[in-house]
């Protein structure tokens, strides 16, 4: 795992990608620091970090597009997969490689709060909280990028797809607020969800009976839920979609509220996508 991590870091800083990522992030942090902190004479450093989230979403693909796609394209995955190292270790090594580049960049930006502290009072607890939040938020995005990179052997496709998905995450709060919240639409949504699960099962097993059974079971459960407690369907769509609302969890950190639930959320979100990447690579070997 350490070998993979070392190799990833090496590749980032031997090719231009690591530098490009760092340069663009540092440039925008510096820019927002000057604009919000220096020009307006504000000691609120966290507003810089939250301003930077959108820029960060745009440049995450630089970091992640290569991870799995390039190995598949150059057939170097053959070396990794036939060496005595387990698949989860390979994936985690790669993930940590990308995450360390982010960590390194964030450590450099720490200069700015230090500069700020020479000119005024900085609330260090708030700044540290903001950094932890930003790092976890970034790690979650990188996990998504890692997973998408494992779906293709083309870096450009991986980058564009990652970009699209992250953009969707960006807009998801706006989407949620304009969705219908009544019980009927929640019910329909639940039924569609059951159908989707059944379909996923069908693609995995190619068995009509099992997936049909799952669909029927799902519909029955949905219907039963409706008769027992119809209120669970009001606002269901928003509830489900908010699982993917990465940004809303970040708000707490930037406001200086330090609570455990967004930390758990980000770590589990990342873990799920790292796990999905492992599953994806495993599946490729069986197909």
């Amino acid at each position, binding site marked *: 795992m350490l070998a993979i991590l070392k190799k990833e870091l090496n590749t980032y800083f*031997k090719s231009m990608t690591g530098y490009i990522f760092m340069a663009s992030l540092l440039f925008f942090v510096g820019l927002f620091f000057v604009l919000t902190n220096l020009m307006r004479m504000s000691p609120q450093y966290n507003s810089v970090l939250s301003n930077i989230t959108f820029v960060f979403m745009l440049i995450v693909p630089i970091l992640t597009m290569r991870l799995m796609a390039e190995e598949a394209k*150059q057939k*170097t995955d053959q*070396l990794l997969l*036939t060496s*005595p190292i*387990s698949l989860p270790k390979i994936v985690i090594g790669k993930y940590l490689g990308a995450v360390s580049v982010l960590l390194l960049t964030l450590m450099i930006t720490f200069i700015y709060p230090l500069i700020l502290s020479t000119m005024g009072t900085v609330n260090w607890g708030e700044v540290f909280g903001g950094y932890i939040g930003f790092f976890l938020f970034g790690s979650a995005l990188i996990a998504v990028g890692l997973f998408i990179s494992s779906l293709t052997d083309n870096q450009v496709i991986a980058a564009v797809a990652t970009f699209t998905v992250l953009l969707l995450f960006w807009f998801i709060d706006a989407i949620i607020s304009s969705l219908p919240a009544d019980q009927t639409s929640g019910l329909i949504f639940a039924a569609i969800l059951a159908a989707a699960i059944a379909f996923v099962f069908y693609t995995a097993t190619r068995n009509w009976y099992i997936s049909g059974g799952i669909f029927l079971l799902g519909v029955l459960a949905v219907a039963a839920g409706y008769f027992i407690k119809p209120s669970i369907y009001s606002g269901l769509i928003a509830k489900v979609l908010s699982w993917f609302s990465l940004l809303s969890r970040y708000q707490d950190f930037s406001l200086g509220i330090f609570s455990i639930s967004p930390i758990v959320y980000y770590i589990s979100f990342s873990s799920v996508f790292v796990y999905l990447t492992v599953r994806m690579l495993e599946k490729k*070997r*069986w197909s």
Partner: protein
Amino acid sequence: MIQVENLTKRYGQHLAVDSISFTVETGEILGFLGPNGAGKSTTMNILTGYISATEGQALINGIDILEQPEEAKKMIGYLPEFPPLYGDMTVSEYLDFVSDIKGITGANRKKNMEKIMDLVKIGDVRGRMIKNLSKGYKQRVGLAQSLLGNPEVLILDEPTVGLDPKQIIEIRNLIKDLGKDHTIILSSHILPEVSAVCERVIIINKGKIVASDTPDNLSRGLGNSSRLNLRIAGQEKSVLKAIQELHGIIHLESLGVREPGTVDVMVEADPNVDLRRPLFHAMARASYPILMMKSMDMTLEDIFLQVTTQEKEVR
């Protein structure tokens, strides 16, 4: 050392490998022959744990590659069809990385690397970026990678592709040397290579084993006649007539005039009859000098073509 039982790989409807079974003894060099798309690389990819078999199992030294992949992979060095190289690493960085992921540690690590670089003769490019190397060097770096950690089993997919004739001979000799203390499976579609290096040959076609034997046995078993190619100075008709009178001739054919005043003849005789002496005496009596006499044994090429095109079971 290697046991393969009913190995099958299906890609959707396409059957890439169709229940192949074979064993390789310790210290044996096995040649894998087959036309493109016969399933050679697929079989090797399954043996090394890169892809999974649909059915059947592969045991390396008694360890199932699917059930205990990490244990089994420790014993295998693999050179895939396209050497898995990172272009933006230097040769020594690359070998360092491979040593890392193979878990080679300790004092011997450096020595092992140096020895292998010597063996495949890449010491002079150790500081160069891999992407700037020629195909031959890349191939040798790939080979070096498979040798790292001194695995007991070597699986080499077309190891001499892209090398020049001198390097090919060097690598072949190297493989022969390695065969003394390694078990090797080697695929190729260069037939002289297989007959020069391998102790046993498996010919596969369309995912099935069509022949499996030593190269010598294969050429002997298939030839049901002995053939001679002759160039004789003399009139075509009278020469043919003189040969026709000999005993044991199955088939006689003129190949035409290649050199003025001579004729080329192909003689096919009963395998139990050695025609060369009677031919000499007969021609000497008739004073037709024999300018050339060549025995036309069935080469691996002929066997290969025969078994892969006629789909005939050879044993």
